[in-house]
Each structure stands twice: as C-alpha cells, then as structure tokens.
C-alpha cells in the first residue's frame, strides 16, 4: 500500500473551506463509508464571548506533519483516501477552521482514522490560534508536541 496516495488532499488555506467538495473528493466507488470531522469557531471560550479568531502556522512544517498523519493512517487503517484542510488567518464565529474526511470500504477504519487524525493534528501540527474578545485577546492554551528527550538517544 502506498504511503500517501495521489488523491489525498492536505492543505492550508486562507479562504472558506469547501467542505462539500472535500466530501466528494475522498469518495471512491470501492468505498462504503466516509467519516468527516468539521471543527469550527465556537462563540465563547472559558465563558468569554469570542469575537473572532486568528490562526497562524509554520506552514511548511505544518504541511509536513499533516502528511505524516496521512501516511500513518494509510499504514494503520484500511482506508482509501483522506483530506485534511486547515484554514489560516481571520475566522468568524461558526466558520470551519479544520475539516477532515476519510473514506474507507468499511466504517470502523474511517471512524478510527478520522479520530486519530484530528487528535494528532491538535498535538503535533504547528498551528496557533489567537482568540479575540471584546476586551482583549489571548493565545489559546495549546498542547506541547512530544519531542525527543535528547539528541544523543534519538540518533
């Protein structure tokens, strides 16, 4: 099985994510199931009303980490195709910040691969979110990606 198949779509975009077209993109004739995750901007955060968000990324590394996720789920689960698209820049309430769609012959693999993809994206892909409120702005609490403890042991 190839590590990443041609049809996978891994992108960072600055305009609205076209979720319906991604659902069509991953759909294959041999498939029976697509599981999709749509993450979008909530209207509040820790009880404060959100006005809007700004996302930034270390773009080439973020794409590299998204590709690692795609490679891993192709190896680990019996899936056909995956789309992972993250939006950057200014986002309003309700707008999709990340969309993941996974197609597979059977639903179990699609569910597990989609869940793995979003959980891992949130831990390892270098993207940052700043939340703007009526009375200020904060960088969202995030997760520290796992790193090798020492270059000596890692090499």
């Amino acid at each position: 099985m190839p590590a990443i198949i041609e049809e996978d779509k891994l992108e960072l975009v600055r305009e609205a994510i076209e979720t319906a077209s991604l659902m069509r993109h991953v759909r294959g004739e041999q498939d029976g199931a697509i599981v999709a995750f749509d993450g979008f901007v909530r209207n509040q955060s820790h009880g404060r009303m959100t006005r809007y968000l700004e996302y930034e990324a270390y773009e080439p590394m973020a794409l590299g980490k998204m590709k690692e996720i795609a490679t891993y789920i192709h190896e680990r689960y019996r899936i056909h195709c995956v789309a992972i698209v993250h939006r950057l820049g200014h986002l309003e309430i309700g707008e999709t910040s990340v969309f993941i769609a996974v197609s597979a012959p059977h639903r179990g693999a699609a569910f597990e691969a989609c869940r793995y993809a979003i959980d891992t994206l949130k831990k390892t892909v270098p993207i940052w979110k700043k939340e703007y409120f009526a009375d200020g702005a904060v960088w969202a609490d995030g997760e520290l990606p796992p790193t090798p403890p020492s270059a000596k042991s890692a090499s």
Partner: protein
Amino acid sequence: MKVLFFGRLRELIGVAEETGELPEEMTLAQVFERYAKRHPKLAEFRNSMVVSRNQEFAAWDTRIAEGDEIAFLPPVSGG
C-alpha cells in the same frame, strides 16, 4: 541559518524570522539562550515551548549545522 518565532514568542520578541550566522557546534538550547539574553521575558517560556530543526521537532541538546532552519514553537492550538 534561519531562526523563526511563532505565536506568542513572535509577539514577544517582535520578530518572526532572523537570518544570520551562528557558531556551529552550538546546541538549540544555547541558541535559545542567546535570544533570551536579548529578550529576558522569553526565558519564562522555556518550559512551555518546543524547538524544531529543519521542520522536525528536536531535542534541546541537538547541535546546529550550517543552513539549518530553527524554529521556536509555543504549545500548538490548531484544530
């Protein structure tokens, strides 16, 4: 050698990217300390950040080499 800062680290030092020469054999921790001397507030974030070398997460004791792209990364919050 390119050094990049993101998120709150970028805001703190007011610079997203610096290009320049750094002595080889320096570790990533030592590179960070050079910046922390110029921007003392940076030191507070030392335990809540990670570092990458050539777009891979790296250990702080990794030694740099010519042409490296180094980035200092706060906790990620995509999704």
